[in-house]
């Protein structure tokens, strides 16, 4: 164990009251055993975490909480929506609007729902606490978080927006966000989760875990927009469990952060499950954006479909690693995976690694990864119609990105994200 890891242990011991002492102690044991990963670990081969773990962080929440007005100013489209505002992992009641939560939906803090049977049944069941140092740290330190419970047969029409604001004062802040979504049998819900920094000077390390249980015949749509500032570090593990006949769709848009690493694990553990994973990452400057995904086909007759696209400019680095595991009972599996990247500059780098491990014999699986430059013919065509080179490039890149963004069913959110991508692509460092 390195000395850095030891400081985390000391911080852990200093926590006054633990809400889930057994789980937390166990998680800390796992962390102590593993220590922080190095580049020898295949999962972290291209992503050096030295800048993240070498920092000294404050654990306290800033005093000035963000207001509802500030949220609405930046996200006008959430005005009528169900809105949960989180600040460094903790619910900000004043900025949230939880008065009109419909029947069948419960939105709670983790610390206040630890005796609820659904929470006991699902909390920390899907995160890879034994295998991942950051998951272990999250579980050890996350004394609170957000729980969303959708009861049996409940169809929640209104989208639920989770807006997570990372904030710091004079010292960089570490926050272990924790979210649990439980959608019971035959329920359906649409969640849009946005992570931003409070200001451009905010310095934070967000270490997030999202656990999602999709009950039998349930349907979940999950949008994940990650747009923290250029100084931020963000590691996010999303762990999804699917029961029979369930449908899960996730759209991940990774834009912001100095280092942004996503891990998405989906376990298809019942017959006839369907999963859709769409991801877009746009990196410029010296950003590093890493997306690791893994789909575990455990039962027969399931379909999974994955498309991740990356636009990498400047001196930025993109990583895609996608695994599909088909276990031996998972006959009649259909699994598709595709990763496409565009490099906008000579210094931009992408490492793409698709992997298939198939132990069943009657399956259809395809995967592939491509990396290329922008099509010169298309660029010339647009320019020959009077469109300036930088605008033409932005238009083509946006078209590339739209393949992913078009899967976001909330039009306001889609337009908002599309605007962010467009602005980002026009910035000089590309």
């Amino acid at each position: 164990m390195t000395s850095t890891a030891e400081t985390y242990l000391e911080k852990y011991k200093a926590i006054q009251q633990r809400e889930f002492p057994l789980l937390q102690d166990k998680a800390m044991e796992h962390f102590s055993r593993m220590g922080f990963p190095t580049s020898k670990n295949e999962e972290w081969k291209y992503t050096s975490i030295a800048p993240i773990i070498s920092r000294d962080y404050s654990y306290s929440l800033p005093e000035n909480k963000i207001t509802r007005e500030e949220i609405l100013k930046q996200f006008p489209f959430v005005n009528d929506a169900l809105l949960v505002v989180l600040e460094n992992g903790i619910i900000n009641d004043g900025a949230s609007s939880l008065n009109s939560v419909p029947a069948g939906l419960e939105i709670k803090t983790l610390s206040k729902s630890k005796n609820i049977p659904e929470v006991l049944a699902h909390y920390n069941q899907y995160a890879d606490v034994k295998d991942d140092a950051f998951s272990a740290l999250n579980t050890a330190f996350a004394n609170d978080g957000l729980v969303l419970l959708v009861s049996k047969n409940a169809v929640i029409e209104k989208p639920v927006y989770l807006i997570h604001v990372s904030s710091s004062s004079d010292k960089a802040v570490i926050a272990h966000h924790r979210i649990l979504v439980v959608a019971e049998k035959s329920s359906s819900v649409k969640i849009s989760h946005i992570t931003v920094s409070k200001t451009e000077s905010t310095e934070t390390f967000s270490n997030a875990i999202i656990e999602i249980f999709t009950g039998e015949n349930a349907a979940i749509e999950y949008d994940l927009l990650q747009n923290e500032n250029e100084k931020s570090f963000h590691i996010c593990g999303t762990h999804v469990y699917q029961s029979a006949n369930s449908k899960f769709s996730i759209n991940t848009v990774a834009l912001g952060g100095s280092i942004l690493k996503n891990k998405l694990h989906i376990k298809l553990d019942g017959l006839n499950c369907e999963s859709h994973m769409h991801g877009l990452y746009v990196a410029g400057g010296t950003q590093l954006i890493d997306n690791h995904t893994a789909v575990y086909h455990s039962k027969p007759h399931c379909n999974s479909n994955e498309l991740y696209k990356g636009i990498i400019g400047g001196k930025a680095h993109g990583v895609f690693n996608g695994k599909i595991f088909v276990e031996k009972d998972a006959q009649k599996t259909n699994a598709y995976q595709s990763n496409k990247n565009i490099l906008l500059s000579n210094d931009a780098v992408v490492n793409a690694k698709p992997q298939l491990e198939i132990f069943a014999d009657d399956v259809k699986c395809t995967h592939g990864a491509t990396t290329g430059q922008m099509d010169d013919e298309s660029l010339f065509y647009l320019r020959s119609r009077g469109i300036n080179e930088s605008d033409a490039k932005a238009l083509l890149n946006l078209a590339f990105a739209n393949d992913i963004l078009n899967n976001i069913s909330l039009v306001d959110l889609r337009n908002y994200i599309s605007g962010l991508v467009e602005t980002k692509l026009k910035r000089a460092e590309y």
Partner: protein
Amino acid sequence: MLKIKNLVASVEGKQILNGLNLEIGNGEVHAIMGPNGSGKSTLASVLAGREDYEVSGEVIYNGKDLFELSPEERAQAGMFLAFQYPVEIAGVSNATFLKQAVNSIRLANGKEKMDSKDFLKLMKEKMALVEMDKTMTQRSVNEGFSGGEKKRNEIFQMAMLEPKLCVLDETDSGLDIDALKIVSNGVNALRNKERSFIVITHYQRLLDYIVPDFVHVLYNGRIVKSGPKELALELEEKGYDWIKDEVIA
């Protein structure tokens, strides 16, 4: 409008245009005919500003040195190339693309951006010119378009951008007679006293519909013969061999 003097162009070390001279006045329609490999499409590409070519000589367009202008600046100054092979651009709708083009050209010429209402009105009006279905504006640029639809889309764009000099690169290739008529009608509707055209074609057939003021024969990267519109008929009748013989002699 356009003065080309001793234009030489090569690509990948191979010289294609070998000292081409041509002068085009306002409102004139010039047809450029020639056998395959004579340099017709190279001329179109060089005029539009394709960067794969090394060029020398002089091309003056409305008083400006064309080689000093980027492709977009040429378009903003009123040049338009109707592509022989229009590019398919997935994910960008025709309407989005054209709106950006129209507004870029307007801004470059000191005009204000066109608002959405006026833009839609203009599109509707110009689509009628080439009998284009309105669903085509919502489709991605040229994606999945038939050959005829692509060429019609080129003329539609030309109508929208209202250029001063139009270069039509083998716009007739791959068109059946009905599509050829529609495309030609579109072009003819855009003819006026100011707007000039360079119509590049292998076949005389197009010139039955778009009647030129002058016909030039391009051979081995040079214009070897020029004449009135009747020259096209002569070429159709005799083929290109007699020109070749004449050049050699």
